[in-house]
């Protein structure tokens, strides 16, 4: 991975489904915005150029371990070059829900060569801090199955033929992923967070760890619009949601 030598900062979260990582990142996001930082959020699998192909592959079950790996790499490359890198150049705080480690874990359990994966993603930017939300497997599975009527094919790892029962397959698949994450925590120095702890405490801990890295990061003044509204006694009723 390329070292991050740019004005912005990059914080990412990783963890199995149901670890609560997205909740923590969302809380962090809101806090950073309230502190006046310019925050850019990037989600796994969200490049407008690649998304439709991934969706097609999943819907029609065309994805094998290698095409699953390659199409996600394309998505990641697109987001890196069109979204993450320009934002970091502009001095923003970039938050990513899942990063290269998700690909390392998911592809490795599907039998893709680990060294090849690391070289494949060598264009990625090294995060300022990477958090791994660690949760006992049973707890993660309970959280997911409680809130979801049915599991999707690839989400449940059904492509791996671990079991024909979706829930059982999901549990086995998540177990393999979790073991892979344990290796990655060692290899890449991810910060292990206890995801069974009280949510508020988890968030405090996360903020505490991030704060030292925010020193000197720009907080661009976006008060110009608010000032205009105040001056005119306006509510901004017709502004697009982005500006409200």
């Amino acid at each position, binding site marked *: 991975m390329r070292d991050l030598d740019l004005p912005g900062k990059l914080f990412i979260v990783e963890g199995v489904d149901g670890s609560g990582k997205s909740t923590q990142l969302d809380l962090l996001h809101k806090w950073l915005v309230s502190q006046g930082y310019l925050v850019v959020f990037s989600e796994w699998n969200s490049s407008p*150029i690649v998304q439709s192909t991934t969706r097609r592959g999943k819907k029609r079950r065309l994805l094998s371990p290698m095409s699953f790996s390659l*199409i996600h790499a394309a998505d990641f490359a697109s987001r890196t070059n*069109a979204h993450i890198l320009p934002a970091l150049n502009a001095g923003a705080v970039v938050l990513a829900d899942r990063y290269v480690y998700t690909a390392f874990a998911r592809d490795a359990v599907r*039998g*893709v060569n680990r060294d090849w994966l690391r070289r494949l993603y060598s264009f990625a930017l090294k995060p300022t801090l990477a958090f791994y939300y660690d949760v006992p497997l049973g707890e993660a599975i309970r959280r997911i199955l409680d809130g979801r009527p049915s599991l999707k094919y690839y989400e449940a790892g059904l492509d791996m033929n671990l079991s024909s029962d979706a829930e059982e397959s999901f549990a086995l698949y998540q177990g393999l992923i979790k073991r892979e994450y344990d290796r990655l925590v060692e290899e890449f120095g991810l910060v292990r967070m206890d995801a069974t702890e009280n949510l508020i405490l988890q968030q405090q801990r996360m903020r505490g760890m991030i704060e030292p890295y925010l020193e000197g990061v720009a907080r661009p003044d976006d008060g110009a619009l608010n000032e205009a509204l105040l001056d005119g006694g306006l509510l901004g009723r017709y502004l697009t949601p982005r500006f409200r």
Partner: protein
Amino acid sequence: MTELRFFGFRPPGIEGQSLPGRLVVIEATDGVGRSTQVALLKEWLEDEGYAVLDTGLRRSDLAGPGIERAKQGHTLDPITLNLFYATDFWDRLERLIIPGLRAGMVVIADRYVFSLIARAAVRGVSERWLEQLYGFALIPDRVIYLDIDAEQLLPRVLRRGGFDYWESGMDFIRGPNVHDNFMQYQRMLLAEFRKLAVRHDFTVIDARGSVAKIFRGLRTEVEDVVSGMGLESVGAGESDAFTLPESAAPSG
């Protein structure tokens, strides 16, 4: 027999040691007349009694439509575009080329990973990264490269209907003079192809001559690759089991 050997490593899901078919790759830059040669070659091989499968870039079920869409606009950096093509290539390798070879067919690949490496390399993507990326590609029985200079390419491209945006490298070469862009881009690309030709031991055919002359050269090479195929025994069950995906059916 095509030995199941890969440039870098054996990708997951591919079994076996050798395949009864043959994989012939035709590489060349844009506008040489590659598609014409592939069409002639396919007909000739079929007339000789071989079962032939031809495949080309962007024809995969999975990624073909997505690449076409992506090339219409948006900010598309060379790494993303290359990984998109890599997905398309892998999908065809896994679901078309290898099954075809397993069934004992002659597979003609109209371009292979070399075109993808050359195009990305001239756009500044690391060659080492590219060669490692395509480590999952099957080593073909023969790579035939149709060699030409940019100057000789020009009339063919004009006759065909003029300059194409991507074939003129206009996504990264600036300036309003399309002719100059085309020449500059094709020279860079040809230099890259020639480097690859040495490194990967291409069979080079001079493509400056007539269609008939090029085809004679091509036929001699392919004859050599397929000779003896009829004498090898093919597991009958294997070839019976193979049916082509819809997308591979001959078009137009």
